[in-house]
């Protein structure tokens, strides 16, 4: 299983490239079990959104 550290890297990369199926599944399984990484995923999504809205 992926560690939280690996998940954080893959999540960042998922904003820059297409993940392969194994990576994608690894993330899904990890998110199912790990609330911290689910929050981290929200943080990254928020940061992207903030950049797009800057500066309001």
């Amino acid at each position: 299983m992926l560690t939280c550290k690996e998940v954080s890297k893959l999540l960042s990369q998922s904003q820059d490239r297409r993940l392969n199926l194994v990576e994608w599944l690894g993330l899904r399984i990890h998110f199912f079990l790990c609330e911290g990484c689910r929050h981290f995923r929200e943080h990254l999504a928020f940061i992207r959104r903030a950049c797009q809205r800057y500066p309001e």
Partner: protein
Amino acid sequence: MLEEYRPYLLRYALLQLRDHALAEDAVQETLLAALESRAKFSGKSSAKTWLTGILKHKVLDIFRKQAKESKQVSLEAELESGTADFDSLFQPDGHWATWPQSWADPVKNLENRRFWEIFEICAKLMPVNIARVFMMREFLGLSAEEICKEMQITATNCWVMLYRARMSLRLCLEHNWFGGKFEES
């Protein structure tokens, strides 16, 4: 009429370029270019969006110039140095050292002026090359492949730099905004 957008454009340029003189120049050129091509402005988008679009091209030109001039050494040094992979955020076994918490109602923050002040401070804390790559990706809308070409870096290095940029921004926002050190007003 275009002049009224100058402060907005300057703020935008300053976040990207971190240099007052460069930012002033980019904004000046943007306003001139806008005047010259006024006829092309269709009114489909807002004037603000139109001007920001022109400014983004100017900023990208400056980034290209800087990438050519700056020695690759500094870029490599930046990649190797510092908080490598943000190790301290994780335990040796790869679990979070500090569990990420939910950011309550984050979208609401985007309407808060104080939030953007903190956001700007945090963005300016990123190391210069990492910030440049991040700006290209998230503000100027380049793909990772395009950034690799512009900056002459490998895809892996590009991903590492974007990762560090996001981690650094996240951590700074967590500490200085969502962590509640600043009172919302």
